[in-house]
């Protein structure tokens, strides 16, 4: 897998048969399968090393002899990585963040897809990748529900704690409360305790009873259960307590978090008065599940479906085709369902792009895992009354420091009825992260439906203005800037 052969700006790049955006489980499996079917593939990834979120691993300089200690499924990744490295048909472009995709004209060799990317962590340089078809495998980002104190240093995302541990072998503290909702909390807590942290509690907002309603989907997914059980067993062994139907309703501290208040929740996620108790900690890892990262596709008008948790995912057919001709999707972009599902969908998409029939094994895996994913999303969907723990002075938008009170005033006094209007009135969601951190929360506080709509964000990462100005042709810089 030759690395970093992208063309500098203005260069005449090769037109690949397929450009895969994202080198997580979905993108890696797709690139591998597509190369196996004879396609020339560009594997474009923002990360500096392949693997995405699930297979994030220590930097080589750290000399980790046993990286599998922080991983389920490490062997599968190692095999995939070795095959890709040996393949002459795959060009891996690490450190390339695609910020806009221009659709090609299917069947017209003169008008391929054009992917515009920045290069490197400082986004200083740019590159254009050309391809006849594109697979969007950009994964997901975490959903957050704000609470007083969530902006304190030491409050980090569960996925972020996991990522910093897996890639740089560090912890945010020694005594780390893990809170929010969803299976990632168990995975994160399990890694944190194996790495030597104390986890005084995992605070999970749901009762986990939602899973009981989906017994057939559970029974069809023994591997998922085993993974959950192995996290569970490790956590039990270390005496980690899972507090169900509870939430961290406040983080305390001045310069950094020193304690949290945990309260029990009723069925609608309203804190039960009098149930509060304080837990001392020096870090807090939070997250309420994941939301598909699909803006490159929604910008092109791709159709979406709303999952049981209110999050929008790309609508795909049985061959992983989106509604945009020439654009495929696989993994979390089609709805959050975990690494095995992402692997299967990557393989299915590659076969479809190559015009081959879908392999039976992956088709069966997809059916089972999609059923499990729907169950999971429903079980962990935020309860309607979570906003009751958000005090008026809680900053909802971390970037622009917009407190909940301002958002409520925009709705109640100024009559804003949706997240878009609230955004224009308050600047919530208009900062650097482009609403990734606060989008779902702002939507809820605006009375704008469930866990997070596909809010149109024209650029998929902040881009120096100079690069926009250089962009000629169908992408019009001025119009494509955010509202």
């Amino acid at each position, binding site marked *: 897998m030759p690395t970093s052969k992208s063309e500098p700006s203005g260069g005449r790049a090769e037109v690949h048969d397929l450009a895969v955006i994202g080198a997580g489980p979905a993108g890696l499996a797709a690139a591998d399968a597509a190369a196996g079917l004879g396609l020339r593939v560009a594997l474009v990834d923002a990360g500096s090393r392949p693997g995405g979120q699930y297979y994030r691993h220590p930097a080589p300089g750290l000399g980790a002899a*046993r990286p599998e200690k922080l991983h389920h499924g490490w062997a599968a990744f190692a095999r995939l990585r070795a095959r890709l490295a040996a393949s002459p048909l795959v060009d891996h472009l690490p450190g390339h963040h695609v910020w806009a995709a221009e659709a090609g004209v299917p069947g017209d060799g003169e008008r391929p897809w054009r992917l515009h990317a920045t290069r490197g962590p400082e986004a200083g340089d740019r590159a254009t990748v050309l391809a006849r078809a594109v697979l969007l495998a950009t994964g997901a980002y975490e959903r957050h529900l704000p609470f007083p104190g969530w902006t304190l240093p030491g409050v980090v995302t569960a996925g*972020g704690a996991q990522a910093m541990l897996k890639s740089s072998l560090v912890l945010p503290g020694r005594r780390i409360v893990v809170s929010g909702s969803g299976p990632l909390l168990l995975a994160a807590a399990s890694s944190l305790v194996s790495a030597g942290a104390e986890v005084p509690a995992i605070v999970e907002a749901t009762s986990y009873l939602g899973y009981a309603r989906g017994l057939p989907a559970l029974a069809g997914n023994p591997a998922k259960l085993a993974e959950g059980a192995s996290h569970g067993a490790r956590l039990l062994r270390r005496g980690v307590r899972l507090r169900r139907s509870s939430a961290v309703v406040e983080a305390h501290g001045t310069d950094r978090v020193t304690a949290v208040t945990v309260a029990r929740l009723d069925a609608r996620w309203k804190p039960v008065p009098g149930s509060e108790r304080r837990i001392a900690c020096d870090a807090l890892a939070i997250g309420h599940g994941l939301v598909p990262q699909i803006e490159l596709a929604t910008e092109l008008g791709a159709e979406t479906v709303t999952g049981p948790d209110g999050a929008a995912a790309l609508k795909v057919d049985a061959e992983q085709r989106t509604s945009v001709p020439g654009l495929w999707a696989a993994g979390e972009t089609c709805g959050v369902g975990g690494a095995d599902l992402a692997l299967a969908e990557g393989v299915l998409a590659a076969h479809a792009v190559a015009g081959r029939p879908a392999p039976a094994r992956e088709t069966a895996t997809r059916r089972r895992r999609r059923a499990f994913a729907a169950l999971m999303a429903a079980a962990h969907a935020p309860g309607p009354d979570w906003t009751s723990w958000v005090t008026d002075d809680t900053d909802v938008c971390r970037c622009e420091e917009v407190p909940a009170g301002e958002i409520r005033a925009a709705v109640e006094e100024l009559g804003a009825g949706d997240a878009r209007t609230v955004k224009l009135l308050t600047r919530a969601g208009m900062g*650097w992260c482009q609403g990734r951190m606060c989008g779902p929360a702002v939507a809820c506080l605006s009375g704008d439906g469930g866990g997070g709509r596909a809010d149109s964000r024209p650029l998929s990462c902040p881009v120096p203005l100079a690069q926009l100005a250089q962009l000629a042709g169908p992408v019009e810089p001025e119009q494509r800037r955010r509202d």
Partner: protein
Amino acid sequence: MDPLDLVGAEPGPARTVLFDGRPVPALPGQTLAAALWADGVLAWRTTRGGGRPRGAFCGIGQCFDCLATVNGRPNQRLCLLPAEHGDTVTTQEGHGHADLEV
């Protein structure tokens, strides 16, 4: 047990970076944010509005909370930048300047 023991890490010699003038060790391959976490530092920016402390939140380049001035350049995401020997990191007050304009 610590994270390095867990995976049997045998990193090369640490590099030294300067955080607000103070030397901080960084293992090869660690990001600047990771080196600061390992040193017990969780905040390296104050916000534009309330002047409140912030550090790494998402850990993967998405939230832009971990901005600081690195080698004189403001608004660098420390969770993405590998620590290089001699890097100087300075706590960033407010916005530095708007290089990462959206």
